[in-house]
């Protein structure tokens, strides 16, 4: 039973983080000034902010390109992951064999595949970057989907069987809704991974600094323009957080009943 006003509650929840943010900025700014840290080591937040506004249009264009690779790669990887999960969950033998393989492949630095993808699809083809993201997203999604489809409450399954219902109906009515939380858990992880993956895959070349965020950042860093690099990094973070936020919204819309979506922490 709540009688505390809503604004008070929100304040108590978010104030510490916000205060820390402001404090950190102040400390950062003064420390750079006092200790006379060179710009190429650590630029001042004020400089970064200035550079941010100055370079915004350029960074924005590059970000769009990167986000396109991230989003499409995410969609492709998720779709494949879900389809393969549906196909293999039915036959436990396959999923038992695939699961360790999936975990094994997930242990590889996916970026090592970047040059291979470049060779396959051509270095300027955006698909080569999307495929890296797709591979990064595929495995968590597939693993979690398989778990979600198979780790069903035995009681629910027994109930359905007592209604003499077909396996397809069980899939639709029981397994899929059960899998949704697992799926969204994977989506949340994959959303930030896909932004990072898109940026990192661009490191392996093929695009000018105007075309992609990753190339921009490494270019600026190589030129010791760290204000620009930081500005672009901040944009990259915001994109990642934004993508994550979109997933949260979709989750709330798709699964309003689920515990993880309810407002009490």
């Amino acid at each position: 039973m709540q009688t505390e006003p809503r604004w008070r509650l929100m304040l108590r929840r978010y104030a510490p983080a916000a205060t820390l943010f402001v404090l950190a900025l102040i400390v950062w700014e003064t420390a750079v000034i006092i200790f006379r840290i060179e710009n190429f080591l650590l630029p001042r937040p004020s400089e970064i902010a200035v550079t941010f506004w100055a370079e915004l249009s350029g960074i924005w264009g590059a970000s769009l390109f990167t986000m396109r690779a991230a989003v499409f790669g995410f969609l492709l990887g998720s779709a494949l992951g879900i389809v393969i999960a549906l196909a293999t969950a039915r036959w436990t033998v396959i999923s038992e064999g695939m699961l360790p393989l999936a975990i094994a492949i997930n242990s590889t630095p996916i970026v090592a595949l970047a040059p291979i993808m470049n060779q396959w699809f051509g270095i300027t083809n955006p698909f080569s970057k999307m495929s890296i993201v797709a591979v990064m997203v595929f495995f968590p999604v597939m693993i979690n989907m398989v778990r979600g489809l198979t780790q069903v409450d035995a009681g629910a399954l027994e109930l359905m069987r007592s209604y003499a219902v077909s396996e397809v109906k069980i899939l639709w009515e029981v397994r899929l809704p059960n899998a949704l939380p697992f799926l969204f858990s994977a989506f949340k992880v994959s959303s930030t991974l896909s932004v990072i993956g898109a940026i990192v895959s661009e490191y392996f070349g093929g695009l000018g600094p105007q075309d992609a965020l990753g190339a921009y950042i490494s270019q600026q860093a190589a030129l010791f323009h760290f204000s620009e690099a930081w500005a672009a990094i901040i944009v990259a973070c915001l994109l990642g957080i934004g993508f994550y936020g979109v997933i949260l919204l979709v989750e709330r819309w798709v699964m309003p009943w689920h515990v993880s979506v309810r407002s009490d922490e």
Partner: protein
Amino acid sequence: MASLALEAPLSVTPPWWPPLRRVLAFFIVVLVLCAVWEGYKVVGQAFGDKFPGTTLSFPVRSDDKSMPHIWTIIGVLFQPARRGGEDILLVLLAKAALFTWREAAAGFVLGSVVGFALGALLGRFVLLERSLMPYIVASQTVPLLAIAPMIVIWGGRLNWPAWWSVALISTYLTFFPVTINTLRGLRSPNPTAIELMRSYAASDLQVLWKLRLPAALPYIFTALKISATTSVIGAIVGELPSGIADGLGRVLLTFSYYYISGPEKLYASVIGAAALGIMFAALVILVERLVLPESRRLEN
């Protein structure tokens, strides 16, 4: 909690069968995938990489440059890595992997300690959790490759060896899952268990040591398994801007530049990198098996 009186198991499968079955299933899947790979090449070569009767081309070219034969990839492991060089590729990869593993292990240990300490502090002080948590989560959205050069430069300024910077990058990737899971684990005991401790007038330290820590152990191990592989990834990616010549990062980069002259070497190196990640994870799993009895292990 289920109550199991001590009974003999009803089924008669020997205890070594399930893990053996898993290993066999793994190898069968690998073999199937190899067969698919070679099969794709055969079909592609037969149809000139186009779907019959259309101008639609196969997504990936099937020639030997794009998709080397499996046996070529395996074979190249036993050939000299560089023209005129002494070591075969396998040895080169092993040395590079060992080098990278040192950095990854250092990052793993540091990341686990930091992650654990952070998780414990956040669990104890709600104010800390409220203020720090958003930034801890946000830290994971920063693309690693972007901050890697900066960490390397800072390291150079402070005159420490290059591999420390790489270990630090590895730490950065490792600490997050450990923090989250430590927090979750420390909070996992049910309220009744806490009440019981209160009825003993136990000090906070006693509650931490006797209840929360043991309860958190399964969760922490889950995070450590993930961190084992991410620490390897962090080390490899971290080596790229740091100019380190002896690690897997440089090996991968070199072979990607010289892809045209020997694509099999790149594939072999990628498999080598994967193997390193898997072996490290397997090590952690082994430790888990020693520390936690089966009843306490969490789902993978």
